[in-house]
């Protein structure tokens, strides 16, 4: 049976008939990646070899033109755990899932999604999803439920995204009261990109119990890509008042090989604790969308009055995007 006829038959029996009302074609594209690494992780007392799945994922995205210049857009992305098939007790876990309307006015979208602050980081984290992931050191890398956002169109290189996050009856700001408003949490970003330069200012208010502000800059000079971030954040209970910076550099040696390094440090003014992260690595491109990589990461957690806690990891991995 022709696959389209088969699809139509299955879809009609399951209630997927809405395409009959759309003005434009229903587009859907599956995308994703498999990213596996063999890693040796040493926490100072135990040395463990493991296979990691590194946020391997499967997603569907697309858009439908519902009127001239007006689009319905959607994206549904799920993590799959290539190493042991167990994603927190499930076969798949939810990553970014959103639906929205885009027109000349910009995009209004909603779902469970990375906050504008997290998106503004714009991949200056060169070891994303690995042991050196910036989220292991810095606050603000949040995927937020119940997010309702507006993203402006790009004007002269500038664009902004503002998101509100209803608490839905939970105590989102830690004041002991249930939050039931529409803007219990707020996340925003303002970015400028032109040519090789990208700059963003972003912030959160009452997101993941944090108030946060970060500035991100990225610049490409031929084969060299530089990234820098400065961040301040404090939690709602007043027990954390952090500030820190992060720098990264990637240098493309040739068409296949890229060397990468990054360093971050953040200090808590409330108790004097400090965290540092340093990662080195190299990517070797096998084909479009496929690469091998090696990395080494050192993460140090210094607490006042306690011995430093150092975690190191090195590994070899493969990523294939589709």
């Amino acid at each position, binding site marked *: 049976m022709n696959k389209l006829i088969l*699809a139509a038959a299955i*879809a009609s029996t*399951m209630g*997927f008939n809405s*395409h009959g009302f759309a003005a434009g074609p229903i587009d859907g594209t599956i995308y994703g990646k498999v990213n596996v690494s063999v890693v040796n992780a040493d926490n100072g007392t135990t040395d463990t070899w493991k296979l990691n799945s590194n946020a391997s994922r499967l997603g*569907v995205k*697309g858009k439908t033109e519902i009127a001239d210049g007006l689009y319905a857009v959607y994206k549904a992305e799920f993590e799959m755990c290539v190493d042991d098939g167990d994603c927190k007790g499930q076969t798949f876990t939810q990553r970014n899932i959103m639906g929205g309307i885009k027109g000349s006015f910009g*995009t209004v979208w909603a779902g469970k999604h990375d906050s504008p602050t997290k998106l503004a980081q714009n991949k200056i984290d060169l070891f994303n999803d690995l042991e050196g992931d910036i989220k292991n050191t810095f606050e603000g890398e949040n995927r937020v439920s119940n997010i309702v956002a507006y993203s402006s169109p790009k004007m002269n290189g500038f664009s902004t995204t503002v998101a509100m996050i209803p608490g839905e009856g939970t105590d989102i700001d830690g004041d002991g009261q249930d939050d039931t408003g529409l803007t219990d949490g707020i996340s925003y970003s303002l970015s400028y990109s032109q040519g090789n330069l990208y700059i963003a200012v972003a912030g959160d208010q009452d997101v993941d119990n944090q108030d946060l502000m970060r500035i991100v800059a990225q610049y490409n000079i031929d084969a060299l890509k530089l990234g820098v971030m400065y961040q301040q954040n404090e939690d709602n209970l007043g027990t954390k008042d952090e500030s820190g910076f992060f720098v990264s550099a990637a240098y493309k040696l040739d068409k296949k090989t890229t060397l990468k390094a990054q360093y971050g440090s953040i200090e808590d003014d409330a108790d004097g604790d400090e965290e540092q992260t340093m990662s080195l690595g190299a990517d070797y491109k096998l084909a479009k969308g496929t690469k091998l990589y090696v990395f080494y990461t050192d993460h140090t957690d210094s607490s006042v009055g306690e011995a430093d806690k150092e975690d190191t990891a090195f590994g070899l991995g493969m990523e294939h995007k*589709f």
Partner: protein
Amino acid sequence: MNSKSLRFLISTCIIWLCSTSAFSACDFDTDDADSPDFVDKIIECDESKNKPSRPVLNRVLGKAEYKNTTRLYGDGTKDPASGIFERPVVAPGSMNHSPNKMFASRQAFSLRPNAKFEQSVTLAIQRLYIEMAHYCAKGWSIEDQWSEPDPAQEGDYFLHYRYTCAG
């Protein structure tokens, strides 16, 4: 596998079956889904996916001509001066000639108000002539020319020349 996962798999298969070209030549990178302008990437990628890959070239040429034309299109190398991804300009003085062989070359140019001088159509034409001289050192005939918008950036275009080396 639990029932939720089974339903998810069935749903994704259905969408794949319904999609016109799930694995097209679109340059959407998986990590673009997490980029600040992810919505733009979805729209642009799907629009480029729905277009024939060589719309004007297909229209201009018959099937046999299309097959016999050597396309000298870029491999994505970034021009540091213009910021446009395009193949490097062939160095003058590096000459070849293939009698009666047909080529198609393209160069990027921009009509954006803030475009740099290096992105002007004049320089695009200059680069195309250098390229034609490189591949057809003993002369050539321009068969056709056309422009296509660059889906990656509004206001940017590719100027194409199709030409045949002198016999």
